């Protein structure tokens, strides 16, 4: 009996993994090429929903498998510049006092998360094509959503330097930047030149 339960449990577990992987692929492809979320009623029963979610999270199979590697992105990182009263640079830092490779690599992941967040927010802003005077519930909801997201990024950037800036003598303000390597076609670029970088978003904040 115990063996039967185990066989059925692991079979069910593997079926869920299959559906999660299948769905992650299909959904990613569909939303990238057709810019909309895919809905297939029968398959939706197996994907992560409010009934299956606790099991997906607890067993760790709720991953979109980062290493699937669809639409790989370039390196992203954060940079902080501490400024004096004349807006002259006192010092700059990319690692926010983190010392280990593990944490620094995770920080790059966070920069990537923020870049995607900014890009998705810009997409939402683009959806708002109506006049400012339009106060229909959908438009108000959309504006609330993207304004919240804009605030979230600004707050995050502000917090990233807040504590350290206080400890630096003569520092009156600081700038935090999200920077990305600009994607290039490897067949056209000059192989030996350093990659171009682009500031996705930046914010300058006074030391409080």
């Amino acid at each position, binding site marked *: 009996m115990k063996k039967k339960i185990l066989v059925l449990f692991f079979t069910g577990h593997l079926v869920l993994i299959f559906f999660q992987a*299948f769905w992650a*692929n299909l959904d990613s492809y569909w939303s990238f090429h057709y810019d909309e979320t895919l809905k297939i009623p029968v398959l939706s029963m197996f994907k992560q929903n409010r009934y299956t979610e606790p099991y997906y999270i607890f067993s760790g199979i709720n991953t979109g498998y980062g290493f699937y590697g669809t639409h790989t992105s370039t390196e992203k990182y954060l940079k902080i510049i501490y400024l004096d009263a004349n807006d002259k640079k006192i010092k700059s830092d990319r690692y926010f006092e983190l*010392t280990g490779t593990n*944490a620094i690599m*995770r920080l790059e992941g*966070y920069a990537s998360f923020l870049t995607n967040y900014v890009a998705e927010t810009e997409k939402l802003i683009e959806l708002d094509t109506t006049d400012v005077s339009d106060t229909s519930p959908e438009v108000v909801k959309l504006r609330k959503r993207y304004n919240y997201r804009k605030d*979230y990024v600004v707050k995050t950037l502000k*917090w990233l330097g807040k504590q350290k800036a206080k400890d630096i003598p003569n520092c009156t303000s600081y700038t935090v930047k999200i920077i990305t390597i600009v994607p290039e076609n490897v067949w056209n670029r000059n*192989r030996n030149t350093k990659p171009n970088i682009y500031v996705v978003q930046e914010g300058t904040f006074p030391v409080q």
Partner: protein
Amino acid sequence: MLFKKVHSLYNKLESIFEKDGKEISFLIFFRIAVASIALIEIGSLYSDLPSLFSSSRTLIPQELLYLEAGDFKYLHAFYGFLKSNELLDIFYSIAVPTYITALFCILFGLFTRFAAGIAVILQLLIFKSFGPFNYGYDFFLTMSLFYCMAFPAGRFYSIDAKIFKRPQIVALNYRRVIQIHLAIAYFFSGISKGLDVGWWNGNSVWKAIASVDNSYYAVYPLILTVVGIGTVLLEFSYPFLVYYKKTRKYVITGIIMMHASIAFMMELYAFSAMMIVWNVAAYSNITMINKTSDVETA
């Protein structure tokens, strides 16, 4: 009639998990390797951990860190409960030491299932609290700890074996679960990459490895293209090539080389180590451990 069909279907399923004589060495290796990697990883993060997980020293407030994570509703309720009962400081001070203790228990096989259950819950609570700083390794660690709990991983070559003296047998081939899990993951990874034109012309590989801190941006486009196409084909064909004995060692060697390259070029050491452990656990013959288990099971 229906009963017969169900019975026959079940028999087919059971045959998938048929024991092959290597399940004991697999369980020992998997448990020790997973716990070791998790301990090394948390050790390498330990000095920086307060910047990501603490009551007041995080880079940005903990709430902002998990606010936009998928697990917000669970974490918000959990932290709300701790806050209302003034348990927040206690949680922050005991979570990581308890997690590390649980990992040591898994390593030595002491109350292994219980320790793995505690470890998986704490790993989720700790690491999801800085969700946007998570990456593939964290998911694979959750899965690995879950498997340490679901499999009888502490039954052999462990303190549990000395204390409980349970029969040294296993019900089924747990190794098959890892083998099928890997086959699904690589197959879909191959399809996913194959649908992205960047993996066929070298651009995706360049994006993945080019950094302002190294000179990988100068790698020849032809090499990038070969690596990209090789990765797509290797991952896509993994389930088929690993199924046949003749091609198995070549595809496993290829996959291990791929993960080793990822470790050194992208500095994803823990992730690569975990993936290599899964592949070795799933397909290798660990003869030294087999001898030990043979002695124990005699």
